């Protein structure tokens, strides 16, 4: 990997090593071109290091457009942007119906525990899952008796195989797989596809503890590293998409899972001592503070809901936003970034 020193890959690694990586999550399912363009525009001006967007070439192009507009505007406003932010595309999020569909095998013992757990009523009484309704969240598997283990998945890998190269072509440099599901085998198959799609880029696996115990979480990370080696980033997800309120409580799970990975893996096994950890899932303006207070090391922080919310009232088409509104939005975004990665005086 030395040959990549000084490259974008090297830049990414340096940012992670210095714990200065801040990523804005535009939303894995956010297909709103105008909003993504606006978010990338404002947050690039604020000094954001990376963006996480939906796995769609159009959305990646929108992000690129927002970034490009920010560079042009920066000259006018005399703002220095040190580097072009890194674009990551998100795939495989639990609930993403493009990635996997559950089905029930013949091992089913007809306990019917899965029926009420399905958020989309995709499991009728005859226990034949309605494919169109299944969002692949894994709730049915979580309640399926271990002795039966009757929930399996089909994976739309062809979709991933075709969509990811287009995203890379459009400007995505990194890919993130949301893998907080119980099934190791299928997750690792998807991970292989992700890994092969950006062979010279960092790849991130996003994990939470909804369906994973501490022990399974660590095993999953080890398996992920076997495939990704030093390209691996772990995004430690507290409670996915929960960052509504700006307090310690909301960000507690995010800081806690990062702490757990540090203690059970990074501090114990030399092989993982440099593994980058991004904190996510319930992140807000207090995340960095809580992590520092609790002595939890991290390589970066990624924020979605809260980061988008604080600048939403200024949102309009880029050419229509006034300098005054833009500067207010950029100030809010910059404060959020600096507060989290400790750049405030």
């Amino acid at each position: 990997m030395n040959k990549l020193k000084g490259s974008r890959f090297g830049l990414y690694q340096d940012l992670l090593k210095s714990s200065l990586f801040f990523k804005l999550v535009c939303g894995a399912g956010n297909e709103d071109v105008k909003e993504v363009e606006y978010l990338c525009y404002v947050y690039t001006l604020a000094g954001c290091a990376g963006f996480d967007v939906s796995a769609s070439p159009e959305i990646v192009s929108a992000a690129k457009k927002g970034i490009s507009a920010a560079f042009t505007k920066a000259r006018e406003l005399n703002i220095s942007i040190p580097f072009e932010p890194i674009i990551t595309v998100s795939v495989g999020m639990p609930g993403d119906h493009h990635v996997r569909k559950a089905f029930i095998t013949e091992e089913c013992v007809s306990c019917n525990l899965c029926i009420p757990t399905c958020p989309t009523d995709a499991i009728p009484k005859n226990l034949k899952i309605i494919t169109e309704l299944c969002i692949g969240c894994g709730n049915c598997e979580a309640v399926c008796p271990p002795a039966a283990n009757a929930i399996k998945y089909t994976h739309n890998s062809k979709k991933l195989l075709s969509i990811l190269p287009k995203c890379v072509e459009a400007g995505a440099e990194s890919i993130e797989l949301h893998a907080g599901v119980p099934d190791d085998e299928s997750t690792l198959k998807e991970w292989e596809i992700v890994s092969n799609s950006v062979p010279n880029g960092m790849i991130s696996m996003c994990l939470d503890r909804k369906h994973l115990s501490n022990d399974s979480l660590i095993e999953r990370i080890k398996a992920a590293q076997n495939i990704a080696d030093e390209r691996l980033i772990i995004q430690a997800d507290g409670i996915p998409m929960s960052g509504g309120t700006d307090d310690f409580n909301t960000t507690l799970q995010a800081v806690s899972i990062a702490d757990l990975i540090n203690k059970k893996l990074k501090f114990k096994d030399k092989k993982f001592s440099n593994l980058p950890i991004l904190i996510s899932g319930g992140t807000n303006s207090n995340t960095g503070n809580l992590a520092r207070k609790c002595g939890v090391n991290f390589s970066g922080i990624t924020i979605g809901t809260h980061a988008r919310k604080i600048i939403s009232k200024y949102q309009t088409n880029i050419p229509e936003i006034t300098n005054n509104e833009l500067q207010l939005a950029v100030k809010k975004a910059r404060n959020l970034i600096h507060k989290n990665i400790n750049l405030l005086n």
Partner: protein
Amino acid sequence: MAKIDRLNSFKNKLSEKSFYKLDCYFDNYDINKLTSLIYIYVIAGVSAIDLKLDLDSVIKAKETISKALNNSNEFGNSKINSPFLIVSCYSSNIVNMDIDEFSRILISCESKGAEFFELHNDLTDINLIKDKLLIVKEVFTFKPISISISRDKLSNSSIVEQIKYLRANIQKDIIIEVDGSEEENNNEYNATLQSISTADIIQKQLLKKEIAFRKIPILLSGGTNSLTVELAEECNVHFNGITFSDYARNDFEEFLKFHSVDNDFEIKNYIKKIKNLIL
């Protein structure tokens, strides 16, 4: 009648959020040090003592508690109540135990003063010890069963399912002790983070979601220290009590490095410190 009063008092302590327990489930810890530790915590006013499910341990603890209650005046603590005596064991230790043997141990411990039972659950399938837990319910009639639970082997979803199973199939009246499962316990915020965050997840995914579970008491344990209350309050995580274990023992060991348990003045000062921790 006395037993009912004790049960009410136990529940009041929990509802008033003033339940502090000393967990003495230490492997290979010097028995004299252990009894001294119990002695000090009883005089300081600890709410409960948690012991290994073992008859000798119960007898020894009862003797120490009596002695501490008799001597408490000398340390200026005349109004202390006798702490509740809890016996506990790990699921993996009883899963293959003969049911009659298990029953015999429980009954003998109860007859010598054990008042409550706590299960440290380290099995993913709690159904494997259902028969044992039904015996517990029978021996400790009308008493809540405490279940100590960690995220080491259980996901957030599995924890919720286990609690639901326990309540539906064994005992409605339960206490959840969340175990942060810390290997090292320095007196830092970091050590107590996992315990607080596990309590938080149980509240968010069960207690706040389902009315039937709303009032289940939560005890924080595993990595708890003198900073636990502060961090839990800052993070707005509700709890009914705290269990001190390794922190209590390590702190006591530090005390023993420079002081003696035979010196009443030194003991008095140490009891003051413990009172600040638990009251």
